[in-house]
Structure formats: structure tokens, C-alpha cells
């Protein structure tokens, strides 16, 4: 088994290879504006580090967010296309689950929160590093203060809002290494992973840019 994992749902562009036992190569770069440019070279680098070619990959794992959409889609489109070209399965995993898995927080409960911009966070509550208790949601930190009170928290969204998350700590961003390990564990246990479809959690902004193609209602 050789899993290629990637995630572009947070400012990190992160890629890892997992052979079913261990992570054998990984790369993480933090640059929220260049997911599109950084991802493919990172895949290439990680494969070279492992001395392998892409066609050795037997499955792809991709973080499905939630995360800022433009970056999120880079990972999903790349994973989908690898699946098409290689004829291998593409699995999704909630990006927050990857962060929870990497959190190393011992016994829960705890919270994972990432930066959703516009003064909001994407978040979910966990019983332990493998067990999510709530569906991922997007909210203003102040509005969820009651629900996260007294709980430790990880992720950039928690670190950004200390008033709501006084016990916030690392990791800040998800790593594909954690995502790959979690996926390998779940697959070995015969669990079905989610489809590689994005968790947007918000409706699209219906703003039409000026001077662009006009479509009049039928």
C-alpha cells in the first residue's frame, strides 16, 4: 500500500506518502496565497525523497476542509485528477480530523478550530484524537464561547482568538502526515472514508464583478 495524502484547506500546503506502516516522506509549506503554485512541486519533491514515482501510489487521501475555498479546491482538484489518471481510489478526510489526530492532547474532550477568515472559525468538538463529536461548523468565536468553554483547543483558529480559546496550542495547521496516518489506520480497520467532496459550509457570495460576462435571467 502506498497512500499519497495532501491538504490545502489551511494556509499549509502539505503532502505526505504513507506505506501502510509509516509516513515515508512529507513536506509542509505555509503560504496561504500560493497553494496552486506549491502543491505539484511538493508532490514531486516528496516522491523523489522516497525514491518513488507517482504510478506506485495505490490510493489518494485529500483533506476536504472546511477551509477557504480557493485554496481548498487546489487539493481536491489535484486529488480527483490523480485518481482519474492513475485509476486509484481517492478518499476524503475532514481537515479538522487530521488536526485532531495530530493534536496529541491525551484524553479529551477538546476543540479543533481553523481560521475561516471574516472573523470566523471552522471548528468541531472531539472526544479524543480519533472521535469527532460535532459536525464541522463555521461561526464567530464569541458565538460559540459557551460550547467550547473550559476545553483545550488546537489550530490557527483557536490561536487567533484567545478570548474564546484561552487554552489554545499547537499544532497550528494540519499536516498531510497526520492525515495519511489517520487514513491508513481507518482503512486498515475496514472503515469507509468520506468521498472527496469539499466542505464549503458557506453559500457562495453572489457578487457579480463589474465588466464581466452578463447573464440575464431567462
Amino acid at each position, binding site marked *: 500500500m502506498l497512500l499519497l495524502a495532501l491538504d490545502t484547506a489551511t494556509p499549509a500546503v502539505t503532502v505526505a506518502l504513507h506505506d501502510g506502516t509509516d509516513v515515508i516522506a512529507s513536506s509542509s509549506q505555509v503560504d*496561504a*496565497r*500560493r497553494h*496552486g*503554485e*506549491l*502543491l*505539484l*512541486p511538493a*508532490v*514531486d519533491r516528496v516522491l523523489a525523497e522516497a525514491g518513488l514515482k*507517482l*504510478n506506485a501510489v495505490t490510493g489518494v487521501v485529500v483533506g476536504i476542509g472546511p477551509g*477557504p*475555498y*480557493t*485554496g481548498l*479546491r*487546489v487539493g*481536491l*482538484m*489535484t*486529488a*480527483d*485528477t*490523480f*485518481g*482519474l*489518471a*492513475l485509476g486509484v481510489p481517492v478518499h476524503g478526510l475532514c481537515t479538522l480530523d487530521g488536526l485532531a489526530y495530530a493534536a496529541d492532547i491525551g484524553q479529551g474532550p477538546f476543540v479543533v478550530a481553523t481560521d475561516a477568515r471574516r472573523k470566523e472559525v471552522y471548528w468541531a468538538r472531539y472526544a479524543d484524537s480519533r472521535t469527532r463529536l460535532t459536525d464541522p461548523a463555521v461561526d464567530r468565536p464569541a458565538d460559540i464561547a459557551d460550547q467550547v468553554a473550559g476545553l483545550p483547543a488546537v489550530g490557527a483558529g483557536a490561536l487567533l482568538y484567545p478570548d474564546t480559546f484561552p487554552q489554545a496550542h499547537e499544532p497550528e495547521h494540519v499536516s498531510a502526515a497526520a492525515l495519511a496516518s489517520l487514513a491508513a489506520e481507518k482503512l486498515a480497520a475496514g472503515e469507509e472514508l468520506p468521498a472527496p467532496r*469539499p466542505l*464549503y459550509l458557506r453559500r*457562495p*457570495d*453572489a*457578487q*457579480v*464583478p463589474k*465588466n*464581466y*460576462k*452578463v*447573464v*440575464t*435571467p*431567462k
Partner: protein
Amino acid sequence: MADEPLVLGIETSCDETGVGIVRGTTLLADAVASSVDEHARFGGVVPEVASRAHLEAMVPTVDRALKEAGVSAKDLDGIAVTAGPGLAGALLVGVSAAKAYAYALGKPLYGVNHLASHICVDQLEHGALPEPTMALLVSGGHSSLLLSTDITSDVRPLGATIDDAAGEAFDKIARVLNLGFPGGPVIDRYAREGDPSAIAFPRGLTGPRDPAYDFSFSGLKTSVARWIEAKRAAGEEVPVRDVAASFQEAVVDVLTRKAVRACKDEGVGHLMIGGGVAANSRLRALAQERCERAGIRLRVPRPKLCTDNGAMVAALGAEMVARGRAASSWDLSADSSLPVTEPHVPGHDHVHEVSKENLYS
């Protein structure tokens, strides 16, 4: 023919997910999925809606194109993709797909210019482009007059609209006349039964001191709308056919006059017309008439190749391969404002600065 480059092209600059496959100048497949209906209630293309639709449509559309062409992905000689200009988020979906596909198949990647692709698509219809070629690109998104001596390396902008695109004017006038959407075909239809000289609508930027090759359709649009509103205010019936014909005549008169003049000024013997508005029957007829009179050969592809599609991207990609142009690198980015003077985005000796605007909202 079998040794001509087999190229798959991906286009996602606006609301069309296009995947085309060509062998040299032969069209093998042209698969398009459009999200146009999802935008209608917003009155224009919503970038986020378009981007979401591209992600969903991409893999099925690539599959469809491969089946239609009856070729195997491993036989491709390259993957081409629109790198810009267009909607940043939408472009990025196509660029991500093209990079992953090219990388997985071990094929070279060519990030190409959307406008140059609109010109190059005519090779699929009428064979190799003459050099030089004058191109008039008219659609809902662009109105430009371009001169190319080599579509892979030299495209010069002579003029462009300073306000609305020609296609926008058609849509807006159709809306004022309550003719529904899209505006182009319905205005064309009504105009056939109307008198193009019934109403003297203004010809924008045609004065002696105006820029010779630039266009303006905003004033015309306002003038037509005012004329219609005045009729209605006076309780008179609006002569829809005459208005459609007179408005359309004003648009195509300016377009063809300036295009033919550019050909004459530059000593160019071929005029290519592309973009969605190239489907307009009066534009085709008047262009034909004026080109014949001026001794210019006119080339207009069939309407489906004039609107945004993947085949045009594949056509330009195939030309890049045929002429041995440098492939793009794996860090190719989507550039929403890629200048028309850059027909493609080659690897590192020539890195283009990314437009940060609107890329991550």
C-alpha cells in the same frame, strides 16, 4: 497526420468547463459543461459558483472528451490549459487539474493564453493560420482587435473596448426589449425582419480624432435604451424588429469597419473573427461583404468553436508542441490578468507575476 501532436486542452476561465482534444489542426473532441443556468438568477457570472461547478464537472468532462475522441490518455503529447486571463478562482481549478493530469501521465504542460486560443481555434476549421492574421475577438467577455504573426509567440493588441464588451451590449438591449436571454441570437433573429437604417444609433469612437481601433458600446447601449423608453413614455409601440436591426447594425458596422481598416493599415490579407458574437449572422455577412471589397480573406469558425471551449486551448497547445515551444513548469499559476502579448507561460526563464487580486477571498 498520425505524427501531428495529440493534445488535450482544458478551459475554465469563466463559466464553461471545456475539455477538447485535437491532433494538430484536426478536432477530435470538444466536451463542454456549462454552469450558465446557475448564474442566471444573479444576473451575471458569480465567480464562486463558477469555481464550484468547475471542480464538480472537470473529471466527467475529461472522461467524455477522451471517449468522444477515441484516444487513450497515455498517447497524448501534451496537456494545455488556460492560464489566463479570466476569473482567478475559476482558472485555478483548471490549472490544478491540468498540472495533476500532465504530471500523472508524464506529459508536458502548456499554460496558454485564452485570447490567443480564441484565434488559434480557427486552425481546426480552416487549417493553418496565415501569418500574419488579424483577429477580431468579440464576446460577452471581450472585444479586441489583435494582430498575430505567430500565434505561439507574437500577438499584438491593436485595440479593445474601453467600456462594455460587444456581447454585453446585445444582452442588455435584449433585456430592455424583454426578449430574454441570451441576447445575441434573439436580437439576430428579430433584426432579420427589421430595417437596419430605421433608427440612426451612434457609432462609438468613429470620429476623426478617436482611437482608430478601440471600441465603445456603452454610449450606444444608453442611446438605444433611451430611445425605447421615450417610445414607451409616449405610449407608442416599440418597433422591436427595427430597433434590433438598427442596434445590431451599429455594433457590426463599427466592428467590421475598424477590423477592415486595421487590415488595410497593417497590410494584412486575412481577418479572423472569433468569440460568441462571431455567431451573429449580420456580423458575418457584413464582414464578408467588406472583406471582399477590400480583397481580404475572411475566416470565421463555426459558432460552437467561437464560444469558450477546450478545443481552442488544445489547438493552441498543439501549435506549441509543433513549434517546439518551452513547456510550463509545475509551479504554473493562474493569472487572472495574463497580458494578451503572452500567448503562453513557459517555464522558469520567464516567470509571470501572479495577480493577487481576488485569488483568495
